């Protein structure tokens, strides 16, 4: 009897909250209308929307919004090589550095510079790879990426990107959030905030990691910062449950789950009616999303059903955590309408302290691990007609020095290079990027930019441009001022578009 009474009481409460919610809506609709009328009055926000609270689509915060102009790119796959791969062994060919090999570095290069580990006077280190030009564009690619040479003409290189951070954590944050300090939204969050997701059963921003470690900067590199947390990256795993706790626990079936989510949703809506906190809407949306994801995510994350020749193309082995598997997953996710897929591959910090970080040993293994999959990714996107609207970006958080690392002013056991923020290589392909362009040039030893110096903000501005956004106008009001990914800097790299 007690139980029954409790149920009646609950049902009553349910009814009251709904009615209550509807009542609130009457006032709410007016406010929404006012909000959109005043929308234009608060700086150039996307469609005048001030975060989720005032958006007309308040109950579906990840609904697609509108780009400022019709960009070619609809989705992004960002391949981040965490640890920072050496541009001097992959794309930035410096024959002069060969001649200087093992000579002491001239003082003029060291003056006023700070290095993470180099102390005293290091020796120069010649390229630990051989280079050739490939394709009609004549792009320089080293022998460590033999498969990649096949797509040389699909890709455009930024050869003189610079950052202002020489430690992994801050540099990764800068590369992904436009700021070296914690607290800013990642580029994936900005893009999902701007464009929403196409597939309503999948998150708009998915993160996949490989290499056995998450990036130094932690999960903040795919965090949503001050944007509503619905825009943060959802990390998926390639073995076990793709998303932690996604399957129903024992004794809980899908109907029960539905009822539970309905009840929680009703309570949350009442909360929202009272407090108007956009995070409550995020929470409602996330419960709904999680429910839909229970079916959709395991399906899209399952690569077992891919034909054998696709596995051969990518070099994938189902059930393993690998960069190859993640590349194939990235293609599947984009095909299913996911907006931003972020891959992190750990293990590129080639200091030469051990065999695994030696440029002639461990580094080569890393190159082999990515060469086939990333080439396969471009080819597979292309044959499915997805490359036209998918922007693929590859790069690290900084580059590496032309000098051999001499940690604590001692010779190192293996060939390695220190962190170098002044000039490194990023490539982009698809999504409206011109093909076969090389923008920027470094000096004859690859130490500084001499032409086309490109900042991290410029890279971001260009990515947003390709997606149809004026990076100066994609803003979010926070702490009394509009924030943007590129802060107060950034220029679209015209040579690429």
């Amino acid at each position: 009897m007690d139980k029954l009474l409790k149920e009646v009481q609950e049902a009553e409460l349910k009814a009251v909250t709904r009615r209550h919610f509807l009542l609130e809506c009457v006032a709410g609709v007016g406010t929404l209308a006012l909000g959109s009328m005043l929308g234009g009055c608060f700086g150039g926000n996307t469609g005048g929307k001030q975060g989720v609270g005032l958006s007309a689509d308040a109950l579906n915060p990840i609904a697609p919004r509108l780009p400022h102009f019709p960009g070619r790119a609809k989705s992004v796959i960002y391949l981040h090589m965490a640890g920072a791969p050496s541009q001097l062994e992959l794309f930035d060919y410096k024959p002069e550095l060969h001649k200087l090999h093992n000579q002491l570095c001239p003082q003029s290069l060291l003056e006023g510079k700070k290095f993470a580990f180099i102390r005293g006077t290091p020796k120069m280190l010649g390229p630990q790879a051989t280079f050739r030009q490939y394709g009609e564009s004549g792009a320089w690619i080293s022998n460590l990426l033999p498969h990649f040479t096949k797509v040389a003409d699909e890709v455009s290189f930024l050869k003189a990107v610079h950052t202002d951070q020489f430690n992994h954590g801050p540099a990764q944050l800068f590369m992904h959030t436009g700021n070296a300090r914690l607290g800013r939204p990642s580029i994936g969050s900005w893009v999902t905030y701007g464009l929403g997701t196409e597939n309503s059963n999948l998150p708009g921003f998915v993160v996949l990691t490989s290499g056995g470690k998450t990036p130094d900067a932690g999960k903040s590199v795919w965090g949503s910062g001050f944007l509503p947390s619905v825009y943060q990256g959802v990390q998926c795993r390639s073995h076990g449950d793709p998303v932690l706790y996604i399957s129903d626990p024992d004794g809980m079936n899908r109907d029960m789950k539905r009822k539970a989510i309905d009840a929680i949703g009703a309570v949350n809506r009442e909360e929202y009616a009272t407090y108007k906190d956009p995070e409550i809407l995020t929470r409602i949306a996330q419960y709904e999303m999680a429910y839909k994801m229970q079916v959709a995510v395991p399906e899209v994350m399952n690569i077992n059903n891919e034909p054998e020749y696709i596995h051969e193309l990518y070099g994938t082995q189902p059930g393993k955590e690998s960069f190859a598997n993640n590349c194939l997953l990235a293609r599947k996710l984009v095909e299913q309408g996911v907006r931003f897929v972020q891959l992190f591959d750990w293990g590129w910090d080639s200091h030469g302290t051990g065999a695994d970080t030696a440029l002639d040993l461990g580094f080569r293994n890393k190159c082999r691990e990515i060469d086939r999959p990333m080439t396969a990714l471009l080819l597979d996107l292309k044959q499915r007609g997805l490359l036209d609207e998918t922007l693929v970006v590859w790069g690290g958080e900084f580059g590496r020095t032309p000098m051999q690392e001499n940690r604590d002013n001692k010779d190192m056991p293996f060939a390695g290079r220190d962190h170098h923020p002044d000039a490194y290589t990023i490539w982009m392909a698809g999504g409206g990027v011109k093909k076969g362009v090389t923008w920027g040039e470094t000096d004859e030893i690859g130490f500084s930019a001499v032409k086309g110096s490109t900042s991290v903000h410029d890279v971001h501005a260009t990515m947003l441009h390709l997606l149809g956004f004026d990076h100066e106008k994609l803003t979010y009001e926070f702490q009394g001022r509009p924030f943007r990914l590129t802060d107060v800097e950034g220029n679209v790299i015209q040579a690429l578009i």
Partner: protein
Amino acid sequence: MENNGDLLLFLGKWHPLLVHLPIGMLFMAFVLALLSRKKAYTSLAPAIAPTLLFGAASAVLASISGYLLSLSGGYNVRTLSLHQWMGISAALVSVLCWLLYRPAVRTKDILSPIRKLRFAVLSLMVALLCIAGHFGGTLTHGDGYLTEAMPTPMRKLFGWQPDVFTLENVQEAAVYADIVQPILQQRCQSCHGPKKQEGELALHTFNALMEGGESGQAIVAGDTVGSELFRRLTLPAGDEDRMPPKGRTPITDDQIRLIAWWIAAGAPADKLVKELARPEEIQPILLALESGNAGGAAGDGSVVAYEDIPPAKQEVINKLLAKGIKVVPVAEGKNQLMVNAINYPAFNDDDRELLLGLAANIAELKLGGTQITDATLEHLEQFAELRQLNLENTTITDEGIAHLKGCDKLWYLNLVNTQVTDEGLKTLSDLPELRRVYLYQTKVTTEGIASLVQTAQELEIDTGNYRLPALPSDTIVY
């Protein structure tokens, strides 16, 4: 004496700090006076005089420091004199106000005749204060500072036109007056304009621009690299001398290119665009000016061009939305639509009526993986705006493709994993704008493709089926 001069300027530099005191104080006095006229607040009356005293004293100090600051020069003369005299008047009238509100000391008072008018005098003082304050703001922040950020809807309310930077016909436009000057106005003239000339440089007239400033000539006609203006615009980010300075809206790459182009052409005062040589890299930038995208957005392959067309009916859109079909405009302010059935894989031929209602507006149609057959494509020729059509993983055959005739804007066609054969490809050679066709997992043959390539040379055809042969290096582990 040298020292003396420094001291005076130092005192003058206190002006921006001091000036806010009288504004607050004198306003407070006005509020008190206003309130004390009501019966309930008469008790406030005694506070008026002391507030006025402090306000007037600080106003006098502000006036003196302001005068000292003005000696350092660098301000627009006209605005400065307005600000100066309004400020001094406000200070003097505030002293008068204090005298009027002060409790009478003597019985006979020369001011008694106008004492009745004291509230009017006080109001006048506040008005002067507002005007002086506004001109002060104009001096430091530049002309139009207050109104430049006014939102467009509000501007319209006042009947002001927004500063749009578009050209009707770029070929007929004057290079300096219609292109270079508006850029300078947009990005430079808040500091180098009629109201304020930092570094003694003004850019608002042709003569002033040519004259240059403190650092000498700004423009060397014909010599882009030798022109100080160009050098300042292209210094590395973070350089102290780079313009616009950090924190101001940066000038765009395209805008710099336009200025460089004009300087290289000899910085003519009145030549038209069509009279100058136009290098290839300048042409898309010039074209972009016609669409109002001087910020450097349109006019290239990464941005799709769309004309203005009438909007689609909302009730038709709603019907699609109700089925779970995504319908989104291609961009802000555009009426062309992207339609995507990714969340409604059950889409079948019965649903085609829904699409027909939007025939004039659909620019991108994604029906990949749905239940459609050739029948859905029957009225495709009505889709005049169609640029992208995704039919992958459907049972579409050559018959369906035949209906594409008339889709003259179609740029992208995805037929991956469909029943299309060489026969269907023949239709495609008649589509003038078609640039991408995806034919992976179809029955087309190399011969069929070869004959299509012959007739449509700009077309990129992809049949996929890529393989990456195993290399010996694939298995070497270091």
